[in-house]
């Protein structure tokens, strides 16, 4: 039995196929089997601000599915990670809340006893696989690449949910993971800034202004790509990059890579194998470096 079930959430399996397929290939190389369970739905993140009970129940039914299969959850999206981790903590610690959730879940033929652990893909690589093991599997050191890490918010915060595995103010896990590929990490102004995705639907102008600030800072650091680990951050910085360029009459042309794509390249995979066809911002340098 696989220890982890891969929880894709809503965004990755439709708008982040490059993330999903590169992550799956990397997991395969690492010999980590993941299960694809039937029946997962939204993690509950969009429901929580409207009705916390609905949000919690949506999270709980996904946790219940994993528990019934004897699996922990491996997540790719940081918002899913936050929502599911919070629910797992609350349901483990609060017996009364768990009892109420189970009354509701019983109507769907499910129950949850509090056993499931939730791990973000990057955290799992960092803590469980380890940087040393990743280095062993690197066949092509990406020393010609300089990249800017973007941690995003929910991967790190609120930090009490994440057992202090990284420092929310001065994080280092993604930097260590990038270094394992041989690529150089470049820091930039206001690195911890949020992508603005949380308010994109409510106030687009403000959200895109947040996106613009970060793009300005990253481009000023003169990098070959930005590296991130959340599909929503990718929507803001990659899918919306053109719009920000149009709104502010500027040109970034900043390639945005998922960490799993960077790692796949370092493991010897081609641009095609890591799904680069689906990355919207192309880069001559990347195309030249990884020409087959």
């Amino acid at each position, binding site marked *: 039995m696989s220890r982890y079930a891969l929880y*894709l*959430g*809503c*965004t990755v*399996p*439709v*708008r982040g*196929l490059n993330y*999903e*397929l590169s992550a*799956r290939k990397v997991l395969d190389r690492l010999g980590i089997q993941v299960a*694809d369970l*039937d*029946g*997962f*739905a*939204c993690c509950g993140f*969009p*429901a*929580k*601000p*409207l*009705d*916390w*009970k*609905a949000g919690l*129940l*949506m999270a709980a*039914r996904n946790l219940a599915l994993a528990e019934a299969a004897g699996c922990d959850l491996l997540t790719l999206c940081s918002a899913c990670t936050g929502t599911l981790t919070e629910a797992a903590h609350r349901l483990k610690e609060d017996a009364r809340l768990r009892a109420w959730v189970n009354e*509701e879940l019983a*109507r*769907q033929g499910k129950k949850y006893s509090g056993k499931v652990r939730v791990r973000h893909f990057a955290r799992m690589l960092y803590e469980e696989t380890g940087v040393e093991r990743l280095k062993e599997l690197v066949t092509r050191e990406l020393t010609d690449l300089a990249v800017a890490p973007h941690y995003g*918010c*929910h991967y790190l*915060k*609120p*930090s009490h949910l994440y057992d202090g595995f990284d420092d*929310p*103010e001065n994080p280092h896990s993604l930097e260590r993971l990038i270094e394992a590929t041989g690529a150089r990490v470049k820091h930039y102004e206001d690195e*911890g*800034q*949020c992508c*603005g*995705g*949380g*308010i994109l*639907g*409510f*106030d687009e102008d*403000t*959200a895109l*202004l*947040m996106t613009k*600030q970060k793009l300005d800072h990253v481009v000023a650091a003169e990098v070959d790509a930005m590296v991130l680990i959340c599909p929503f951050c990718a929507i803001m910085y990659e899918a919306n990059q053109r719009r920000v360029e149009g709104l502010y009459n500027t040109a970034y042309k900043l390639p945005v890579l998922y960490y799993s794509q960077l790692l796949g390249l370092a493991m010897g995979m081609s641009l095609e194998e890591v*799904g680069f066809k689906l990355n919207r911002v192309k880069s001559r340098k990347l195309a030249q470096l990884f020409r087959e």
Partner: protein
Amino acid sequence: MPEDDIIDVSDFDPNFRDEIAAEPGGEYIRRCFSCGTCSASCPVGGVTDKYNPRRIIHMALLGMRQEVLSSGFVWLCSVCYTCYERCPQDVRIPELMNAIRNIAVREGRIPQTFKTQVGQLRAHGRLYEVGDYENERRQEYDLPPIREESAQVRQILDDMDVEEEAE
């Protein structure tokens, strides 16, 4: 100053802070001593003066219920948790904003974007549809098909009366 803009404190609702404190996520509102760390850290406040978390909390503590619920203020929090980590009083601001949002939603004040999302969740169990087209595309990239699970999600949303507000 025109009369209309002047606030009359007798219109305030002195119970609003208790109402918020009774709402999960809002428990710690009374701890705020208005230091401003949240506003100084806030990436939304950094790009627009439309949003200022310390001010919203202050208004809520004063009992400005109508103003807080009817303005768009609480929906402008990007829930990034920057202030959550830094608040010296552990007020847990984004959870507090969610608590106030829950109260607003119960009074039928739900922004259009969230209504649309609830519609998607009810129809597909997820924010983006995964139908034949999406599964064919997934297959092109050797990714396994996904079966939508909408009935159970719809049941949860029905039970919680999120539906009504979404119509």
